[in-house]
């Protein structure tokens, strides 16, 4: 047990601090809408890639820094950016999900074509997974891809597609082998959003914003060589991707920041003198301390190459619930003063009350997206605790 940094990691910490001092003023503001990254954000992204703070372990030939994986280095970098309130780089689905997936199972040609452009923010991706009839049971998806000559012809509908309204590309799951069992009939395709036959319609959510879209496909032709890993391998590829998505959500830095904001809010509203508010805040502080310590434990295990098993599987469920409870106390602290809700729109900053309300509402979405919490509880109990799986119901 030793929480001091090694000389190597302290040197990196000094380096990042120097970077923040020299370049910090160029950082775009944190948060702020769900729009296509502007020039300032893309310039900042390239600066981060060039300094090795993004794409650090990605091989040089694919545009990264080619450094050996070291989760503690990533943690040091993330902590310094968070402490300075500096934007730590794009966290879109192309970077967090497609890139790790291609690096694991893509061809050399696919990696060369997409990885560098994606991490530098020049190509934005969206994810074509969920369908109206296939949510938690994703493998039942019915969007079809029929091979004609050297193209897959895609017909069907996707939903919950974040950023589809400005994305350049999509990674798509569709059924190409309808005669095979459901998990074996799916393929993973990469396609341009400019392809004729794609219709993107915004889907307004309870936050009042359109964070998602519906995407309709009518005879969309995708070149057959834009498949990842091969026909019928899409479910396997998607699980490589989902593994990366689930580990993304529920990070300790976000909890710490939110707790600090909550303390400030209760102080400025003179609510710390009220026992009920104070005790709720203290309970949440205790949980955040536990969550941060748990995160340190996972970080150490990752650095040691240990599979954390159930300790990792609880992150998404526990993290989204804790986040929601933090936002809930803020809403209660605001009281009637928190009711005016004036979202300034996707491109501007909101006032504090509206921001808390949007966090509060958006967290409900986080409990559902990327494997709903009921599905998470199945995963925790079945894969983490070895309880028996649900009996399969024969398909109609």
């Amino acid at each position, binding site marked *: 047990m030793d929480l001091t940094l090694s000389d190597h990691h302290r040197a990196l910490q000094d380096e990042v601090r120097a970077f923040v001092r020299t370049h910090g003023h160029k950082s775009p503001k944190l948060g702020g809408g769900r729009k296509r990254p502007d020039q300032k954000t893309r310039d900042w992204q390239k600066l981060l890639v060039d300094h090795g703070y993004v794409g650090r372990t990605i091989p040089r030939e694919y545009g990264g820094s080619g450094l050996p994986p070291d989760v503690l280095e990533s943690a040091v970098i993330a902590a310094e950016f968070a402490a300075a309130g500096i934007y730590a780089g794009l966290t879109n689905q192309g970077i967090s999900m497609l890139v790790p997936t291609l690096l694991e199972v893509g061809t050399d040609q696919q990696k060369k074509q997409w990885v560098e452009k994606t991490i530098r923010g020049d190509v934005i991706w969206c994810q074509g997974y969920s369908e109206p009839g296939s949510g938690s049971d994703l493998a039942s998806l019915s969007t079809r891809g029929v091979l004609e000559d050297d193209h897959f012809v895609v017909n069907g509908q996707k939903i919950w597609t974040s950023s589809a309204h400005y994305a350049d590309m999509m990674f798509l799951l569709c059924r190409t082998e309808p005669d095979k069992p459901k998990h074996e009939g799916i393929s993973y395709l990469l396609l341009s959003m400019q392809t004729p036959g794609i219709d993107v319609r915004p889907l307004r959510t309870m936050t009042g914003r359109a964070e998602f879209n519906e995407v309709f496909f009518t005879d969309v032709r995708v070149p057959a060589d834009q498949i990842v890993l091969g026909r019928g391998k899409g479910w396997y590829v998607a699980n490589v991707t989902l593994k990366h998505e689930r580990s993304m959500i529920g990070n300790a830095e976000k909890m710490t920041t939110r707790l600090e904001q909550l303390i400030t809010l209760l102080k400025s509203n003179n609510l710390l003198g009220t026992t009920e508010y104070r005790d709720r805040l203290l309970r949440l502080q205790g949980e955040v301390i536990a969550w941060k310590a748990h995160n340190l434990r996972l970080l150490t295990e990752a650095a040691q190459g240990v599979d954390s098993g159930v300790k990792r599987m609880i992150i998404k469920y526990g993290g989204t619930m804790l986040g929601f409870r933090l936002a809930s106390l803020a809403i209660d602290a605001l009281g009637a003063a928190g009711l005016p809700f004036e979202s300034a729109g996707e491109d501007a900053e909101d006032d504090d009350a509206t921001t808390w309300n949007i966090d509060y509402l958006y967290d409900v979405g986080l409990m559902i997206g990327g494997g709903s919490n009921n599905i998470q509880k199945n995963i925790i109990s079945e894969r983490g605790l070895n*309880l028996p799986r649900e009996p399969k119901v024969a398909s109609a």
Partner: protein
Amino acid sequence: MEFALSEEQRSFADSLRDLLTDRVTIDALRRHAETGNGFDPTLWDSLVDLGLPGLLVPERFGGSGLGVLDAAIAAEVLGSAAAFTPFAGSLVMATLAFIHGATEAQQDEFLPRIAAGEVRFGVGVSQDAHNATAVIDAGAPTHLLIYLPDGNAAVIDADHASLRMHRSIDRTRPVTDTAFDPERATILNAANAPIVAMQRVLDAGRVVLAADTLGAAQHMFDAALAFVKQRIQFNRVIGSFQAVKHQFADMVTMLEPCRAMVWYAGYAQDALPDEARLTALQTKAHLGDVGRDIARMATEAHGGMGFTDLLGLHYWFKRISFNRQILGSPEHCREEAARLQGWT
């Protein structure tokens, strides 16, 4: 940076676990609960052989010179076994009271005897310098160590104090009321800031009790998980029902971060003075709450058997209750954390 137990820490925990598996069987636990006073000479001797009493005693006084984190690791194992032995008060708080508040001569007189297992302290806090209630580890003490209102500690020969032992809800650990004459006590008054030194000792006790709860809660969780994997109703093991599975997912999601929290709080006592008080208070409070939930849900998962005396699950349930109530309830600990942060 490495946030994990060392090889030595894991192997010490394993040795202690092996010993307790051997000595603290469910039958022995029942016998002790019927007639015991929280001290079993045979078990104590084997713990002395293992070096448990000297865990925190500095090496120059014949101990291992380890820290609160190591004590917490031991406490988790003791809680997991529901071991009927003095520890949090007698071996952790009393030892630290001498380390942080005694003169060299007082240390020289007592610390080697603590390490050798020759003395055992009932530990408590007095509001009036003459009486103390709910003194722990005082079923069969050789001495009492009672904190006085000024933050100094009075060490009293047990023969010179009146002791009134109460069997507690946790039949393996009594609580004792005492009246004593401070004139006949040795006062540990070498600390520059006695109140601070006392708080440090109380906080270490809180971390260790939280660790004990962690072990007890983990034991109940493991027992419940094994039970639902073999109990059959409606032609299925009941652990295949989603309602049951989701309760276990909830339990593990609450419980697993507690282990890291306890480690962190123990480490903070040893190495992070700025965070030591807050994490000790919050960890005691949080484990009190999570412990209660796990104890209730794990008992419930056993169905009717959980409610009977047959499985003995209630010993752990009551141990968790005891730990929750002693040295500050969750509400009390959180209020102290609020004062610490200037929130009240």
